């Protein structure tokens, strides 16, 4: 029996100060060109928390607006506001402000590496603990804070990375080793942000699915960071570290990596683990990435736009045994970009889209919705990268025309019918196929969609170990209604035995007649 999707969570944290302090575009510029016009101009382009809340793609990400609704508004969405569409919480998650996110980072730290200044903790604690997903076990982890002089000392003399809020240093992440670059303050900060956003995703997943924490057996982390030390740089394991803080006492887990394709690999792995009967409830989870904050900031500032890459993203999906209701994950017909596929776009799309369709005896138009790279075009278009989801839909449509699955005249309408506008922040793995899983579950349960395809692609060449890139895909379908019980019901077994006995009797008769 196929496994099913029991729910998904999607969270964001608005981290404007981290754009300046930790985004690699900015940190590189500070080294190469410290007096640049860009660095002077950037603070004028930072969004407030309220602006980030009112931004429609963010509301879409946390589940307050359907992507089809978002598509009705003209792009760019930067200056568009809709009444009521500025909520902190949504169907799938929340948008956490930066000060509370620092509190969460402190709470997820188990090595006393993250320290916040006393008065900051005092000022933030009340609203942090008011969050319904922040449970007692997390509240118990709050450290009362350190003196301002200690913050100053660690930042100025001990190579700690400052945590800045509203332009003021309110804490720090210190190094976990004196010489090991894998445990430097920089790396620890990146990893702590990933862990905190993964934990927040898990907490919301528990909220939205209502599952008992004790019932989760296994967690797969699929972000793009690595944790380890100089003797095992990518040792892991973010999954178990986040599961510990989220209170998943009966779970273990592992990290699955594949650049931006990681989440789809993890999704297929998780669905297969459940289907095989290895585990009953498997979660995939990923936190976000500080390095990519303000990645295209230069283009956004040049074009008079706000810094739109000020959000840390995270998500989690719960897979479970077939319940006859929730959408199924069809692990029998997956697409994969193989070593031999090559890099021509045609071969890539064939391997990811048409190969699994052919195996399942389907046409391109039999898939109601495709979800490939769901980057928000507000962010990518001004940076010269175009509308990424649209480009994917055009390629799938063009391949459909070549195969005769659709007419050339349908090329123009295909993206609107079988695709969606992009709404996810450009956090690498976060927009890659998976933002639609939550919406897809709802669409299928409401009968709006019968079959969808999740496509993850990853730029492996960035790691300089291969020139190849990668991709995998998997289909989600409406539940066939056949559960494990139904498939092996008593009547069914009686029928099978009856038939076997009849066949046996017939063969005996035939043998007797021959004699």
């Amino acid at each position, binding site marked *: 029996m196929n496994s099913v999707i029991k729910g998904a969570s999607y969270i964001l944290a608005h981290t404007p100060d981290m754009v300046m302090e930790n985004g690699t575009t900015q940190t590189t510029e500070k080294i190469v060109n410290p007096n640049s016009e860009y660095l002077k101009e950037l603070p004028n382009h930072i969004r407030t928390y309220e602006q980030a809340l009112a931004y429609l793609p963010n509301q879409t990400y946390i589940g307050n607006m359907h992507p089809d609704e978002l598509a009705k508004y003209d792009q760019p969405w930067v200056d568009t506001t809709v009444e009521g569409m500025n909520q902190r919480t949504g169907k799938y998650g929340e948008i956490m402000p930066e000060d509370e996110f620092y509190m969460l980072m402190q709470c997820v730290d188990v090595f006393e590496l993250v320290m916040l200044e006393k008065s900051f903790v005092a000022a933030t604690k009340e609203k942090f603990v008011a969050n319904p997903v922040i449970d007692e076990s997390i509240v118990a982890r709050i450290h009362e804070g350190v003196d301002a002089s200690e913050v100053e000392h660690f930042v100025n003399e001990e190579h700690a990375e400052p945590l800045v809020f509203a332009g003021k240093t309110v804490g720090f992440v210190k190094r976990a080793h004196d010489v090991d670059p894998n445990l430097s303050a920089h790396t620890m900060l990146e990893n702590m942000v990933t862990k905190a956003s993964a934990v927040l995703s898990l907490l919301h997943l528990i909220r939205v699915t209502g599952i008992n924490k004790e019932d989760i057996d296994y967690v797969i982390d699929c972000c793009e960071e690595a944790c380890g030390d100089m003797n095992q740089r990518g040792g892991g394991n973010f999954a178990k570290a986040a599961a510990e803080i989220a209170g998943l006492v009966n779970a273990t887990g592992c990290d699955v990596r594949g650049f931006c394709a990681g989440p789809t690999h993890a999704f297929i792995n998780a669905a297969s683990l459940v289907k095989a009967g290895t585990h009953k409830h498997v979660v995939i989870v990923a936190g976000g990435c500080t390095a990519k904050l303000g990645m295209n900031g230069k283009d956004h500032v040049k074009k008079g736009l706000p810094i739109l890459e000020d959000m840390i993203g995270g998500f989690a999906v719960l897979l479970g045994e077939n319940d006859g209701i929730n959408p199924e994950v069809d692990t029998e017909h997956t697409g994969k970009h193989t070593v031999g596929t090559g890099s*021509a*776009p*045609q071969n890539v799309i064939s391997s990811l889209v048409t190969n699994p369709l052919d195996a399942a005896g389907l046409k391109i138009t039999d898939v109601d919705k495709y979800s490939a790279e769901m980057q928000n075009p507000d962010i990518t278009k001004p940076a*010269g990268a*175009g509308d990424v989801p649209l480009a994917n839909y055009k*390629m799938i449509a*063009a391949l459909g*025309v*070549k195969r005769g699955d659709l007419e050339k005249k349908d090329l123009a309408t295909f993206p609107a019918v079988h695709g969606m506008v992009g709404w996810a922040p450009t956090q690498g793995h976060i927009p890659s196929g998976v933002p639609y899983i939550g919406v897809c579950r709802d669409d299928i349960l409401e009968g709006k969609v019968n079959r969808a395809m999740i496509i993850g692609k990853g730029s492996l060449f960035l790691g300089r170990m291969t020139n190849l890139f990668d991709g995998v895909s998997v289909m989600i379908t409406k539940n066939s209604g056949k559960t494990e019980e139904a498939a092996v019901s008593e009547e069914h077994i009686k029928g099978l035995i009856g038939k076997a006995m009849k066949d046996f009797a017939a063969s005996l008769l035939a043998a007797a007649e021959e004699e």
Partner: protein
Amino acid sequence: MDLENQKRVKEFAEQYGPENIVVVLGAAEGEGAGLAAETVTAGDPTFAGPLTGVQLGLTVYHVCEPEIKNEVDPTVYDEQVGMMEMVLDVDDIISEMSSIRNEYCKYL
């Protein structure tokens, strides 16, 4: 253009002579193709990579331009580029590429 790619183009030009090099691009948009073409002819317009201020003047085409298409076996071309040809704004790419070539190419 990716800094690593700029470095490789520069090294190839030094190794084989700029007059013997043809750069074939596969960018998805006219603007992106134009920027890459400018990089290998007039120098890196973003002043970030090894080709900053280096006017190689290399011959450069986009794979969807007729000059390249006519050099390739039609079956192979259809198999490798046919789908993207349908997707891309080929006219826009040709106009961007031609204007850069006319202005900066030294070996046409």
